[in-house]
């Protein structure tokens, strides 16, 4: 055995690197610094939550990771390569509730990314079925979004994000519009899907409880200019349970995040 054999190079698939990223929005009256000198490493398969008050640039950062927006300075790489435009093979994105197309059925919505790339109808249907099964919506494929509950719609969105099997899933406040109970259930569902697929997840939220409950790591951001003020490791065991919410470990993590946010609000 050579000693070098033990040093496996970091497999880049699913790794996210953010280096000294800045974002300046130019308006007619002045330039607004949305993000300043943000650096962040996400290892493959980790569940990372971005949290912070409105205007801290957490969604902007997520959109840049998705290739939907370009940073003013610095570099972002996904699976080892920059992302100058959206690349559905590397990144799946899940948006807020209103993002499903109401004129398509659930399975057609899931097939949408595949249809854009000219995948055959049979292949599309098979992959959509798998994705819908994964998110627990077996048998709901023929329904239109208006026939689905808010939680089910978000399951369809997640299936759509996963249908091309990208190593990274970016989620922009996906459960913000849901009621508290559905939100908790969807959190558990997401953790189940994450455990089953081993994706790297970056999840943006306003909710501190949701952040701690879901995350391996919580990145706390503050506004004006948007930057990272804390990076917490959540060492609570998995699977996460409802009982943990009232535990001391949970409470102290949430308090620590809250103190940062109160300071900047």
């Amino acid at each position, binding site marked *: 055995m050579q000693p070098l054999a033990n040093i496996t190079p970091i497999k880049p698939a699913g790794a996210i690197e953010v280096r000294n990223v800045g974002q300046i929005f130019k308006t007619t009256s002045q330039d607004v610094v949305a993000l300043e000198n943000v650096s962040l490493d996400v290892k493959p398969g980790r569940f990372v939550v971005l949290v912070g008050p409105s205007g801290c640039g957490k969604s902007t950062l997520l959109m840049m990771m998705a290739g939907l927006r370009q940073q003013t300075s610095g570099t972002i790489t996904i699976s080892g390569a920059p992302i100058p435009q*959206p*690349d559905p093979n590397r990144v799946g994105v899940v948006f807020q509730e209103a*993002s499903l197309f*109401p004129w398509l059925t659930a399975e057609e919505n899931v097939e949408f990314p595949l249809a854009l790339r000219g995948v055959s109808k049979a292949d599309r249907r098979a992959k959509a079925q798998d994705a819908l099964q994964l998110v627990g919506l077996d048998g709901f494929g023929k329904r*239109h979004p*208006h026939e689905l509950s808010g939680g089910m719609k978000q399951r369809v969105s997640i299936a759509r994000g996963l249908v091309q099997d990208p190593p990274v899933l970016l989620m922009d406040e996906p459960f913000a519009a849901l009621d508290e109970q559905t939100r908790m259930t969807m959190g558990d569902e997401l953790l189940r899907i994450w455990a089953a697929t081993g994706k790297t997840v970056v999840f943006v939220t306003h909710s501190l409880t949701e952040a701690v409950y879901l995350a391996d790591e919580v990145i706390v951001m503050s506004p004006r200019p948007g930057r990272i003020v804390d990076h917490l490791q959540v060492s609570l065991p998995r699977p996460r349970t409802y009982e943990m919410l009232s535990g001391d470990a949970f409470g102290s993590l949430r308090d620590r995040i809250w103190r940062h946010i109160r300071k900047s609000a």
Partner: protein
Amino acid sequence: MQSALGIKLARLAIVLAIFALWEFLSRTGLVNPRLLPSASDTLVTLGDLLQRAAVRKDLVVTATEVVTAFALAVPIGALIGYLIAENRYFAEVAKPLLFFAFSIPKSIFLPMFILVFGVGFSQKVGFGFFSTIFIVIMSTTTAVESVKVEHLTVARSYGATPMQTAFRVYLPSMLPVLLEALRISMIFNLTGVILAEMYASRDGIGHQIASWGENFQMKQLLAGVVMVAAIAMTFNELVRWVETRCSHWRT
């Protein structure tokens, strides 16, 4: 199901009741039958009129004018509406002006159309076009604005080309609003063309209706009214039927 059927029956009953009242008023002489010929006489006259080659020719003339005006006004109006809606600067400049223009009764411009185009096909089509285009522009603007930014972002995040975005996001998003616009535009279009025919024309169903009125031919006049009403309603219902099939797209 039963209540839906009940509602349909109630509607039918109202229509029948109106015809019955019409028949009753005329037959009993409560209203002078020379002013209001009975419903049955009117329907018989309508049947006779539809047999006449001259009336059919008038219908064809009117239909040609209506279709021509519509075929010009809808694409041109839609293009202008789209360009205005897609450009924030144009939208800010043009929108209030469109509202001003839309609020003016179009009929007051009819004499000018006659002076410019003379009496004939182009005057009627021109006026039909003029009556229609503002509502088309305004509706298209609304339709473009009804496309959700979220949907465009989704398409972009999954790598849609501009063509794919146009056909897979813009078009289906706009379709319900566009269908409604089409329906309402046709009402304006028909009104414009028939008004132009009634005011100054040598042919067309509007011209016929006006001359029947002037000659005190009440049966023919009422039959003409029923005819035009039926044609307008048929088109309207046809588009509405398509509309209801995609009504749940609106969210």
